[in-house]
């Protein structure tokens, strides 16, 4: 199996930024969304958005030939 490509690693970094490093930005009660405090709403939405990012990363790594711009995809 090939090493993960740079593009898929960047896609994997997105949930880390959203869920982990940006905590001071979203750790608040207001505005509430659907009755949920904002911090709960934010993390719950990322349970659904993380699979979207990783699905894209999966597609990228399974068909690297379709993305010739990624220099590390083909020959490790």
């Amino acid at each position, binding site marked *: 199996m090939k090493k993960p490509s740079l593009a898929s*690693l960047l896609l994997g970094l997105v949930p880390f930024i959203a869920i982990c490093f940006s905590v001071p930005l979203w750790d608040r009660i207001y505005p509430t969304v659907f009755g949920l405090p904002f911090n709960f709403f934010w993390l*719950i939405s990322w349970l659904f958005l993380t699979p979207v990012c990783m699905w894209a990363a999966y597609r990228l790594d399974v068909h690297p030939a379709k993305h010739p711009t990624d220099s590390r995809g083909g020959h490790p």
Partner: protein
Amino acid sequence: MTGAVIALTAISIIIAIGAFVAFYAGARYKMDLEQWTVGGRGFGLILVWLLMAGEIYTTFTFLGGSGWAYSKGAPVLYILAYQPLMYVIFFFFAGQLWEVGHKHRMQTQPDFFRIRYGSKYLEAFVALAGVAFIIPYLQIQLTGLGVIVEVASYGAIHRVPAMLISFTIVAAFVFTSGVRGVAWVSVIKDILLLFTALFIGFAIPHHYFGGIGKMLTALAQAKPQHMVMPGSTPNLGHSWFITTVLMVACSFYMWPHYFCAAFTARSGDVLRRNAVVMPLYSATVPLMFFVGFTAVLVLPGLTNENLSLLTLVRQTFPAWFLGIVGGAGALTAMVPAAIQVLTAATLFIKNFCRPILAPSLSDHHVAKLAKATVLFLTALTLYFAIYRPASLVSLLLVGYAGVSQFFPGVIFGLFSRRVNATGVFAGLVTGVALASFLMLTNRDPFKGLNAGFIALCCNFAIVTAATLLRPAALSEPTEAQTVPV
């Protein structure tokens, strides 16, 4: 019939069904070491998903999650944060790990360290550390089981006989059916857990406040400081959150039993597709928090935070329903406990005793001795659970911080050909020692940072420095060379 009898009958029926399925699933296969530990390496997408989900949703999620929401408030969000992120990390190394495991017929985590780094002492150290870190984790499940039966019997059955009975069943089904039996019990457990979590997560806030949103609004007005970090704690703020989430997300698949799960799959692709969809399974976790938050308003002043969910269920619903929740909780403790004890026993015999004490042992004898070790480890854990309950939480934190120290050795081992065994060994020993020291002397969090995270950074620094100073020669004639990079 009294409430206690009804509730306990329901729990017993659920456990009996689980035990029957485990025995039946295992009985159809001949139990050699390969079948017992990695299910013959033939698990497809669904069975791997069940096995991983079954291992991940432990008593801690069920009782601990609601308990933390009850006593600590917003810091409980770290659970919701590390769960999707650990699958992201797993996604990137699962394929490589499976490939190496398949090629070299690896069954355990220390197998990986021996084959990649060519050192039986590294293998034995990893095995022993793994067993030591699993025991407190096992103890959590055992204590959870005791709590469930105690609450469900309205105090009639003491937790010690309760733990004794349930762990006899766990040991019995590990003994006879191995990893395949455990995977199928997960089916029952997951259906029950999903049903109970969805139901009580919506029904309890609705019963007392008319809905989750209204309950949270009431709580945000009554105790706003409980709903943002550091919640009702003095020191669990944002820096603690970031370092803890990173440390746990790295260490999760370093638990020897989760690491092994990667070898049960039919292909690396099965693992990666699992990693993509697994975060969805965490969607029931916030419901457990909402039950804990309801308890803040409805049942203030509980002395044992772990009882908040079950006490609230007992107060709100009829006895038979308490029995179903208790049964789901009991299986939630027993499935991971079975996996943990199975892994620990195999590590102890195969990767510690065999290379160091008795190199001539055959696989057949390893399987036999490992089964005997299951009984020994179960008894040992029972002893700790009964006589050393106080040190439990601190031990679990040491466990997490401890297994995270395997991470650099695994990642460098999979992705770099230059890393050398000495550097990995030195980093591992330093990391384990530093993490244990900071944890056991109550220095966690250390200056607002997670202690395990600090140890992990030192470990990484040592491995990196050793690799840069003395890179392993690419032509070195070890097995490491055959590891695909």
